[in-house]
């Protein structure tokens, strides 16, 4: 059941105009990224590579938030889920299937963006190496975590508010990576409060390996495994919360 729902969701996503248009805009933006490389007085290739990988992350997160927040709400508002939930399946099947389908679509999108980006870098003469592929992989995990955040937040709010909330969590998720360096001037109690609040937000800095990959800074397999496990844990938590909320939801 889950795979059936996931397959249909993935098909629906990758054929949607939002998805295709965002990938198209990404391709155009990647094409224009060389302009920034030209403006740079030196190391234009590195600058272009940085911009391309930032674009992959930004567009990936935009797709994840745009589709993740609308995914469940449109099912509920347009009542498309009535014909699905009236069939012999549990609600958690539906949520997990939806998330897996969304993830599959986003992975396809990220792979397309990575291929476009790397091809562009290769054509323009910038260095293309395996570390960049690894950076793309971790950016994809970041996007999948954000998809789970969007899915979860849309269960608690309207799509618009959920999108805003997701983007705030994206910002905070990167901020919390730096936060430990900033809270030392606070009192012990305040540090504790800030630490607890920050711990409730996924540390998206774990997936920003793109900043190091450009310089071929190696990522050890154990480190990679830890980061993937961290992403997986957050996804599991967020999807479980979504299931818990959706199970009780009156449709």
């Amino acid at each position, binding site marked *: 059941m889950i795979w059936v729902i996931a397959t249909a969701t993935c098909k629906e996503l990758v054929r949607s105009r939002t998805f295709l248009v965002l990938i198209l805009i990404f391709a155009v933006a990647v094409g224009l990224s060389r302009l920034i490389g030209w403006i740079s007085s030196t190391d234009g290739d590195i600058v272009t590579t940085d911009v391309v990988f930032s674009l992959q992350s930004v567009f990936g997160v935009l797709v994840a938030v745009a589709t993740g927040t609308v995914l469940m709400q449109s099912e509920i508002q347009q009542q498309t889920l009535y*014909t699905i939930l*009236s069939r012999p399946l549990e609600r958690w099947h539906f949520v997990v299937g939806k998330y897996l389908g969304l993830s599959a679509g986003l992975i396809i999108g990220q792979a397309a963006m990575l291929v476009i980006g790397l091809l562009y870098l290769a054509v323009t003469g910038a260095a293309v190496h395996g570390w960049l592929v690894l950076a793309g992989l971790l950016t994809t995990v970041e996007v999948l975590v954000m998809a789970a955040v969007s899915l979860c937040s849309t269960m608690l709010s309207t799509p618009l508010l959920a999108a805003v909330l997701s983007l705030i969590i994206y910002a905070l998720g990167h901020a919390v990576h730096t936060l430990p360096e900033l809270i030392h001037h606070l009192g012990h109690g305040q540090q504790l409060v800030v630490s607890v609040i920050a711990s409730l937000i996924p540390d998206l800095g774990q997936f920003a390996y793109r900043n190091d990959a450009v310089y071929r800074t190696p990522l050890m397999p154990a480190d990679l495994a830890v980061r993937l496990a961290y992403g997986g844990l957050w996804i599991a938590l967020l999807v479980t919360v979504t299931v818990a909320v959706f199970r009780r939801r009156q449709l």
Partner: protein
Amino acid sequence: MISFSQVSFTYRGDWLQRVHALSQTTFAVPSGASYGFLGANGAGKSTCIKILLGLLQGHRGDIRLFGKPLGDVHLRRRLGYLPEQPFFYDNLAVGEYLVYLARLSGIGHGELQAACDRVCQLLDLGDLRKRKLRSFSKGMRQRFALAQAIIHQPDLLILDEPFSGLDPLWRARFKEVMDLERKRGATLFFSTHILSDVEDLCDHYAVIDHGVVLEQGRLGDLLGSAPLVLVGSGTPPDQARMLADGTWSIEFNDAERASRLASLPAGSSIVRLERHRIALEDYFVSRVRAFHAAGKHLAGASLRERQ
């Protein structure tokens, strides 16, 4: 097939307000019946269906589906549902969508093709299999909605306003398809406020208003309870109503039939004796109005109480 016994349901309105959608609702749908569930907008029809489908939770009272308590999702394998507003994914083609929903209904790979072919043929969707649903008109979506509801040949078919958006030709085709489903042995459960459809298709009915089932039973019994009308000429009996063409008429029920015929005055002759045709719509309106006039609407209204 379906039985609601003393079922109540409330949902959350604005802020802390709780709205009572169903109150001690009781009705039963016999197996093999074609059941018309009548009610004005907001009467509680959709709430009953959503509870039945598991879309709404937290009811009180006993509901049985196929003789078993609700909660077992596998019961839904025997159930087909046509929603009131048939919206579907925009970017899936008809064929893909049918396969998707058929697989969710538990149809195995081996039977998928035949099942899809059958419903496509029934509802003339064969040429549209590769079209995406976003390009469909309301009527076309309604056809697809019926196709997905019957693709797994369910034992119970729940149809929420099935004829909305259809032109006369497709209304007729829908009725034919429903006849076929009945002949196959399916029970039909219509939720509608278009009463002529119920007259055409149903053999059982229930009237619901403000979450209370006002009346239920066999449609034949209802129609059979209409008074007889005798039109005669010559000397009119007492209480006869004179008609424009010089004839007269009297009304009486089945129980009075023998005595009223025996007591006709001499010099009178019978032109015709026929049963008065009840317009279900008139009946429905009169029942609901009577319910309101009896003050029960106040009771219904009082159900919407603040907690």
